[in-house]
């Protein structure tokens, strides 16, 4: 879904979110309360610059508006694949963004991720996946890597991977699989404003994704292995 259509459905036509380059930001009101919105569009690759721009908004929100909820709107093709960004420490910039979001959470900000278009690996792991909860629109797509690149790295043929991605939730890009594995909490269907209201009301700081993955049948071992480590002699 186009970000403006989404923003209009959630916050009305005068939503106040603006796009600058591939970055979205705004201070909106929802149910009468202020909310910080930050995100990306155009399937933006997240490099050092974009990670820092987003971290800036998160840190400013913590400093200037204690407790204000933060909504992360996610649309990314993943991390920027450039030598320059590697030289500049893209992993450190990503960690900084993730730690800023995590810090906001610990300071009592509810932080909610919403994958509204697509989310790939590095761009997702330090945004939605480190929020209190991450939801998605049903038509969104989440994956780690595109199949041709995955075939090169794993040495498994593209045909085989394509076949697996139809039946195996561990490969398939569909958001339903991320829901089944616990990585995405729920899909927003019907009235989007109602979905946001519910999502904000039920965001909690605890990481329950492994337990969700077990309950939902998509990730059967993670929770049990964590428990076995806790119980080991």
């Amino acid at each position, binding site marked *: 879904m186009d970000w403006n259509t989404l923003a209009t459905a959630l916050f009305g036509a005068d939503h106040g979110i603006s796009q600058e380059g591939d970055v979205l930001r705004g201070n909106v009101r929802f149910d009468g309360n202020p909310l910080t919105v930050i995100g990306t569009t155009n399937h933006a690759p997240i490099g050092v610059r974009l990670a820092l721009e987003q971290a800036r908004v998160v840190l400013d929100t913590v400093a200037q508006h204690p407790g204000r909820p933060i909504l992360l709107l996610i649309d990314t093709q993943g991390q920027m694949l450039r030598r320059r960004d590697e030289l500049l420490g893209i992993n450190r910039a990503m960690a900084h963004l993730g730690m800023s979001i995590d810090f906001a959470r610990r300071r009592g900000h509810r932080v909610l991720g919403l994958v509204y278009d697509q989310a790939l*690996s590095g761009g997702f792991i330090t945004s939605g996946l480190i929020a209190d909860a991450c939801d998605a629109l049903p038509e969104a797509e989440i994956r780690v890597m595109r199949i041709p690149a995955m075939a090169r790295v794993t040495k498994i043929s593209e045909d085989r991977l394509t076949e697996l991605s139809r039946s195996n939730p561990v490969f398939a890009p569909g958001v339903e699989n*991320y829901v089944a594995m616990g990585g995405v909490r729920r899909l927003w269907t019907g009235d989007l404003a109602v979905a946001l209201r519910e999502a904000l009301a039920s965001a909690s700081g605890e*990481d329950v994704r492994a337990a969700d993955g077990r309950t939902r049948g998509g990730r059967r*071992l993670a929770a049990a292995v964590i428990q076995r480590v806790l119980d080991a002699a």
Partner: protein
Amino acid sequence: MISFAECSARERLARVFDAATFHEWLPPTERVISPHLEQLGVPSAFDDGVAIGRATLEGHTVFVAAQEGEFMGGGVGEVHGAKLVGLLRRALRDRPAAVLLLAESGGVRLHEANAGLIAVSEVMRAVLDVRAAGIPVVMLIGGANGCFGGMGIVARCADRVVMSDMGRLAMSGPEVIEASQGVEEFDSRDRALVWRTTGGKHRWLSGDCDVLVKDDVAAFRAAAIDALDASRPVSMETLEREHALLARRLRLLPDALDSDEAVALWGLLGVADAARVPDLDVDALRSLRTV
């Protein structure tokens, strides 16, 4: 001198910590293996490529994990990730003196892509929980495969990063960038270029690692002992300082450069005679850092 890079994960555990004190949780005899690899006809390992447990370090009880780069590049899948998360959650409960992660990983194990991605994010959150509890989390990076992808992010979420000049720390591996953007962008076979971009010397000069050691298990052990009091709680102040450092570095490096970017960046950071850096040994490099 015993090369840290050439040791297996278990040899590192045996040599970095006090002799015969490593007590493993979910050892290979318990056969906790990935459920996903078999489906693909890919061999599995009975420890899923990571050994976790407790040990002592100069008499202090610490929790440790060592990733085995020889098994699927140290990739994080569902079980591998859950072992790390379990270790970190147990640290939160039992409060060891520190958690030490001997990282050697390409990041998410693509053979279990979606589960691996979620697992790495769970590791990140668990690391930050342990740090917030005042227990230092220390990364030791010196394996031949480096520390990449999600584990490269996890590394920079820790209190302290120790690297050897043989170690590499980054996000996307050179092969992945070359495959996606072409050999002109990143020639993964140019080893000197790879090391200038991702290696321990660069990470030391740019401040991305806190301690630079020789490729020697004894040096890693000494750095690990030093790190027992490394707890550095995350605060608004530390995050603002981090932000300023990263923003300054981004501004320093011009968008288009004809000369070598790594050498140029070191020079811009104030390193004297930056062109000599690749030839210098660890001792000589230590004094050159400016950040």
